[in-house]
Structure formats: structure tokens, C-alpha cells
């Protein structure tokens, strides 16, 4: 099996993102599975960031701590990240020479041969392509495509720069680089969590997206704004997150599918609005892209620290949907489902991602567009006589129309209200309205999909996880099983209401979460009565990976 990890590190502003992304695209172009993730500091220039690319012939889609190939654009970053190179790994470097070093003076070449240091990054990608044993043709195709908008001269200079880097590295590689990634027929999608969510929302018919910038969620509105003409979506930067959530609610009340996105601090400001959506029974989709907290925390790192906060967000009691997709494909389909369920049950839905999922590029083999249903649950106004927006009935789901749709008036109140939406002080009616709203919770619960099971029948120890850590967890199961350990995994992506599910008895359960207090574990106990044997937690801002989990499991 092919499984090669590359790390490119450097300061912000030096272009490791460009190098990493181009390399990932090149491997993808060559027909391989690629997974890439980034870790970066909260600054615009300087510091030490890294971009990590894992290439395989299997869909791995999970991070790894150690690398086979390492390259760095500056000394500080090299000092910081070089320890991640395996002892038998290959260093690609501008100056250093040595047994396991491929030396390619990118900057010097760029300056000398192409008259501009800007081409150094392309020289570097060329070198890495050679080290990986990918044909130059794949890189050339990527360059032609990526630089297409910048004019012929730029394209051809970059092509030459890449060829130069490729040539120099190839020479050094002889007898040192063990990899050959010959071109394969397959072609996968290489897409990030944020891109998948934006596209999924659009596919679900979202026509109104409003947000206030906040890392790592900003990419979603940026994507939609860039493509607003094609996708016909109205986007707006709000003055703050409170405006954002109330605008989304207003748009949804007016009949459009609408959403907003933020991270923990901005989401916190939306919590009153979530309660408003619950009370006025207005569909609403919010993306909560988590990052390490409390407060501002580590703005550019990853964590799953907001689970219980999200589930319990908003004063008072009302149904709410909380999903945490595991990867871009899941994110794409899940957000469609979130829009549909929010619409059907007229209530808010929260999609939880995190910086890791938002920013990482995953390989997707296929999307199931044909299985995707996206239907609005508005009733037909012509069939209604005496319209009651909040009609009491068996399901708790009242007929929803939008204002201006027909002669029927659509009246919503944040106060407790009667069936027409008018403010009420009738306490008996209050009671029935509470029950009406909570009936929807019961029905919703039945809609929730049970967790994914992986090798659980013969497993003695089972990892239980949620959201973006799925692939790392499945991978550690594979690795441990190869070593004879009978382990399995149960993975949740639909977290509220928790699906009806029977945990197999007599197993040892270990929660695996990117947080410090084991929030999923608490839910398992309160909702399923499952007491976990152990917890594996990561809270240093880096994503979970199989090495990390394995070490804690075996030594913990």
C-alpha cells in the first residue's frame, strides 16, 4: 500500500499554502487519494505554519503526525517542524546537503533563471513532485490550469520553473527516494470542508447567507460570495453576529432558505437568536466551525469543545438539530439534510465542524447527487380556509406559509402566542404550545440516523467518537486490528436529538474527542446510560490522528 506523508513548513505569507495545495492537486491529478491539512498561527506574516499532504492509493483522509518527506521555507520553521520527519525520511532543502537530503536552491534558481523570487514556490513544487516520483506532466497540467487566469507568460514561466525544480531533484533522488507514483486512471474530488458545506447549502436551495467574518468559518461566505452570480445566492457581511442570525431568521420567515456561520465566540452571540427561531418555529441553519476556546482561544487551531454548549444553546426548551459531519462528502450531504429537517420541523439546525475539517482537503470518490432530495415543506395556501400559523395538531408541525405568498397573513411572535401568532397570557394555551413544540422533538428523534458501526461485533474495546475525527478513528481500528487487537468503533454524526440506538452490552467503550472534558461521554451516559471505560482526549489545538489515539489507548 502506498502511504506517503509530506510536510511543507514556513512562515505565513511565504506561500506554503500554494506549494501544499499545488502538490496535493498534482497527486490528485496523478490519480491518487490525497489528504491535506494545515496548521497555522493567527497572524498574517511570519511565525511557523505547516501544510501536510498525505498521498495514498486508499482513501485515508486522516492526518498523521510523522512525515516521509519534509521541506521548509525558513529556518525557524525548519527548527520547529523537522522533528516530525521520520528517521528514514527525506529532507528537501535549499542549502543543506547530506545522505537523506535532496538539495534544490529554489530561491536562487527563481532569482537567477526567472528573474523573480516569486517563482521559488513553483521550483519547490517541481522538486517535491520529483521526490514523490510523480510524472512532471501531472504537475504541468495543474500549473496550466491554476495559472490560466494570469496570462500566458506567467504560465510558461511557471512551467519552466517547475521543470527546473523537477530536474534538479530528480538527479539527487537517484537511489534515495523510494517512491514511484505512476499515473492511475482514477480521479477523485479534492475538496475542503468549507467548500463542501457552501456547495451543499447551495444545492439545498439556500438563497441567503449572512455572516460576520470569523476564522475558521469565513471561507464559507467567501466561497458563496465569489460564486454568487452562478449560484444565485444573496450574501451579506453583517455588522455583528447578532445581526447575522436575526437576518437569517428574517429571510427564512420571508420564505427563503437561509443560513449563517461562525465560530464559538460569534456563535455565542447568536444563542438568543436560536431561541427565537425555536419559538417562532422558523427554519434556520447555523454552521458552528469550532476552534480551541474559551474566549478567543487559539483562533486558527482545531478543537471539538462546543458540543454540550451547542446542544443546550438558547434559553428555554425547544427542539433543535445538531449535526457534526465527518468529512467533506458527509458535510455536503448533511447540510442538505439539515436544511430539509429544519424546514420540515421548523426549527434551528446547527452543523458543527472545526478548523481541521473546515480547512483540510479530503479526497472524495463520489457525491450522491441523485440521491439528494431537497424539498421545501411549505403548505399550499389555496387549500387553507382559516389560516393558523401555529395550529395545534398531532404532530406539532403547523402549516407554514410565508408573508406575501397569498392572502393569508403570517404572524410570528417571540412571546408565547396563540395559534394565529398573537401574544397570549392564556396559561393553559402556553402549556399546549410547549407540548406542541416538544412533540416535534419526539418526531425528530426518530429521524436521526444511528451512529456508524465499524468492526464492532467481535470487538472487546470500542472507540466512540463524533464529527471530524472519524477517519483517524477508523484508521486506528485498522492499524490495531492488523496487530491483532479486537477493537471497533462507533461514530456519531447526528448528535441531537440523539438517535435511538442500543449500545452492544459487555464492551469496553472509549470516547475519543478533541476536547478535555469528554463531552460526548457525558451525553452517552445521560442519554444511553452507557458508562465509558476510558477517554482519549486531545486539546492542544492539533487534530486527532491514529498515532495519537493508539499511543493513548495502549499506554493510557
Amino acid at each position, binding site marked *: 500500500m502506498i502511504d506517503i506523508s509530506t510536510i511543507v513548513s514556513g512562515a505565513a505569507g511565504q506561500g506554503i499554502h500554494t506549494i501544499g495545495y499545488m502538490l496535493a492537486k498534482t497527486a490528485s491529478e496523478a490519480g491518487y487519494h490525497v489528504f491535506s491539512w494545515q496548521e497555522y498561527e493567527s497572524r498574517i506574516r511570519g511565525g511557523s505554519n505547516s501544510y501536510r499532504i498525505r498521498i495514498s492509493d486508499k482513501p485515508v483522509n486522516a492526518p498523521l503526525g510523522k512525515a516521509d518527506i519534509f521541506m521548509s521555507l525558513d529556518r525557524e520553521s525548519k527548527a520547529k517542524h523537522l522533528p516530525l520527519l521520520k528517521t528514514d525520511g527525506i529532507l528537501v532543502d535549499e542549502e543543506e546537503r547530506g545522505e537523506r537530503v535532496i538539495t534544490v536552491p529554489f530561491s536562487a534558481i527563481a532569482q537567477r533563471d526567472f528573474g523573480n523570487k516569486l517563482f521559488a514556490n513553483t521550483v519547490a513544487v517541481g522538486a517535491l513532485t520529483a521526490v514523490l516520483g510523480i510524472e512532471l506532466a501531472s504537475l504541468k497540467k495543474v500549473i496550466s490550469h491554476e495559472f490560466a487566469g494570469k496570462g500566458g507568460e506567467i504560465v510558461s514561466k511557471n512551467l519552466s520553473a517547475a521543470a527546473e525544480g523537477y530536474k534538479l531533484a530528480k538527479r539527487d533522488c537517484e537511489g534515495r527516494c523510494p517512491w514511484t507514483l505512476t499515473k492511475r486512471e482514477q480521479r477523485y474530488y479534492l475538496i475542503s470542508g468549507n*467548500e463542501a458545506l457552501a456547495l451543499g447549502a447551495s444545492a439545498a436551495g439556500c438563497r441567503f447567507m449572512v455572516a460576520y467574518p470569523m476564522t475558521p468559518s469565513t471561507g464559507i461566505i467567501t466561497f458563496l460570495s465569489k460564486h454568487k452570480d452562478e*449560484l444565485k445566492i*444573496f450574501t451579506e457581511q453583517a455588522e455583528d453576529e447578532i*445581526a447575522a442570525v436575526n437576518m*437569517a*431568521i*428574517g429571510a427564512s420567515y*420571508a420564505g427563503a432558505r437561509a443560513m449563517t456561520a461562525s465560530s464559538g465566540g460569534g456563535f455565542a452571540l447568536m444563542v438568543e437568536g436560536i431561541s427565537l427561531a425555536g419559538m417562532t418555529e422558523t427554519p434556520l441553519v447555523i454552521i458552528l466551525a469550532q476552534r480551541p476556546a474559551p474566549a478567543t482561544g487559539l483562533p486558527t487551531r482545531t478543537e471539538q469543545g462546543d458540543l454540550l454548549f451547542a446542544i443546550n444553546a438558547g434559553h428555554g426548551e425547544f427542539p433543535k438539530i445538531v449535526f457534526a459531519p465527518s468529512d467533506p462528502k458527509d458535510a455536503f450531504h448533511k447540510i442538505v439534510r439539515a436544511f430539509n429537517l429544519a424546514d420540515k420541523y421548523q426549527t434551528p439546525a446547527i452543523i458543527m465542524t472545526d478548523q481541521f475539517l473546515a480547512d483540510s482537503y479530503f479526497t472524495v470518490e463520489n457525491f450522491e447527487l441523485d440521491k439528494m432530495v431537497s424539498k421545501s415543506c411549505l403548505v399550499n395556501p389555496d387549500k387553507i380556509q382559516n389560516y393558523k400559523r401555529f395550529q395545534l395538531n398531532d404532530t406539532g408541525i403547523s402549516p407554514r406559509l410565508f408573508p406575501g*405568498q397569498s392572502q393569508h397573513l403570517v404572524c*410570528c411572535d417571540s412571546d408565547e402566542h396563540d395559534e394565529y401568532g398573537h401574544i397570549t397570557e392564556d396559561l393553559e394555551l402556553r402549556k399546549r404550545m410547549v407540548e406542541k413544540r416538544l412533540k416535534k422533538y419526539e418526531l425528530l428523534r426518530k429521524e436521526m440516523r444511528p451512529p456508524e458501526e465499524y468492526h464492532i461485533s467481535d470487538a472487546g474495546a470500542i472507540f466512540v467518537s463524533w464529527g471530524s475525527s472519524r477517519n483517524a478513528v477508523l484508521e486506528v481500528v485498522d492499524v490495531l486490528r492488523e496487530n491483532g487487537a479486537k477493537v471497533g468503533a462507533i461514530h456519531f454524526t447526528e448528535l441531537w436529538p440523539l438517535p435511538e440506538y442500543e449500545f452492544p452490552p459487555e464492551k469496553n467503550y472509549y470516547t475519543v474527542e478533541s476536547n478535555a472534558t469528554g463531552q460526548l461521554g457525558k451525553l452517552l451516559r445521560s442519554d444511553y446510560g452507557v458508562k465509558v471505560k476510558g477517554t482519549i482526549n486531545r486539546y492542544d489545538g492539533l487534530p486527532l490522528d491514529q498515532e495519537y489515539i493508539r499511543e493513548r489507548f495502549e499506554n493510557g
Partner: protein
Amino acid sequence: MVKIEAYRSDAENQWCPGCPNFGILAALKNALVNLGKKPEEVCLVSGIGQAAKMPHYLKCNFFNGLHGRTLPVAVAINVVNPELITIVVTGDGDCYGEGGNHFLHNIRRNPNITLIVHNNQIYGLTKGQASPTTEAEDKTRLQFEGVELEPLQPLAIALLHGCSFVARGYAGDFKHLSNLLVEAISFKGFSYVDVIQPCISWGTHSVSWYREKIYKLPQEYNPRDKEEALKKSAEWGDRIPIGIIYRDDKPHRLFGDYFRKNIFDGKLTELGCPPQRLIAEMIERYR
């Protein structure tokens, strides 16, 4: 022809008997009737407070949302359905206090909606605390020794940020107010009417205090002169002017113009889901 009865609501009115809010209600109904608008063509948006209960007392679409959050809701409704007559009815606390940031930034957006502020210079529903428009030194049920802050100048803020319809009304002058609202509602762009509305339960001034000071802007007053308007907006003492303080009928960029001109000119509700092949094609770019 729409009749005034069309706007009659069955909901029990919860305002204090004799409150000038009733005058604003009557004037608004009258304005809508005069404009020939049917209840289903109108959408009121309010927050929380006594003023914000208004939508319950005239029959039409409404969204009575959170305290302070009227404008974001209204602006979004206007984006989704530009054909709805979207009117915000709010209080001085709702709009200028809790909602201050939305007031500031939505003037800049210039959405095609009307903002009516019931300005009673007090928090009525919570029983008499100072609002941003309560005058300095006035004593209230929370500011026992008198308010220590200078009052907000919301009209001036609006003028400074390009609001092209700024008016002040008086709840006690039905005809004048009704006409003002007709002008405001039919204005294209953000039209803003701050209505003096004495609170007879908690107000720091009596009704007559206001009545004696209020005068109508004279015929000669030129509402196209912004400098003059800035001065008029600050006139609050022995005399308080009512009427259209500033009006600029030149076409201005409206919120959402780019979208309407370049992407889609209609109700967003008509769009439904995008064609699946468009999504398929966009996904294909990732391969």
C-alpha cells in the same frame, strides 16, 4: 379600495388607556388605507417593548422578534421579498439602545423599508428606566438622581449617514402623522420617522409639555438642505419641530442593488433549488 376595517385586529390591546400609542396606530392604519395597501401586502417587524406590541393591533403580516433586533429581520425580509411593504415599528429603547448597532449600520445599507420609532424617551414596558433619548438630569425609576448621560441624536446620525428621508412626527397629531407616514412608506429607500409619543405612565414629561413645544415645520422650510436639516434635528427645547426634516429624492443605491441588477430581480422565494447539473458542474471543478 381597501377599507380601514380590513386592518381591524381581534387581539386585545394591552396599552394603557389613553396612551398616545393609540394615535400612532390609527395614523398608521390610515396611511396604509390611503396608500391602498392590503394587509397581505404589508409586513410589520417589531422587537420587544410597548411600541413593539403594535403589530398585534392591526391586521397584517408581522414578525414580532427579539428586543433590539428589528432592523436585521426587516432588512432580510426586504431582500427576500422586495414587494412586501416592510415597516419596522419599534421603541426608543428597542431601536437606539439594545438595537443601536443595527440602527447605525442599516442606515448605511439604505434598504427600502420604513422605520417608525415610538419615541417616549423611556423604557415603558419594563416600568420606567431611562432610554437613550431621555434627557440628562431627568429622574426615572432607575436613575433616581437623574440621568447622567447626554441624549442620543438619532436623527442627526441618520442624516450624517446618507439617510434620505428623515422625519419627526407627533403621536398626538393624527392627520399630520398619517400624512408623514404616507410619504415615508411610499418613499424609495430607507425612510425614518421618529415619533414623539409621550408615555403617560412613566414619561419624564407630561403630554402638555410636549404639546406646547411642538410646531409644524413651515411651508417655507426646505427639506432638501442638509445643513439646515442637521440644525432642525437638534432643535429640542422650547420648540420642537415636526414634519419632514430631510428628503432627497435623487435615486440612491438601495441595499441589494447589485444582486437585483446582476443576479436576480424578483422574490428569492421564486428561485427554489438550483438545477442539479449546476451543482454537479461546480463539484466537477474539484476533480
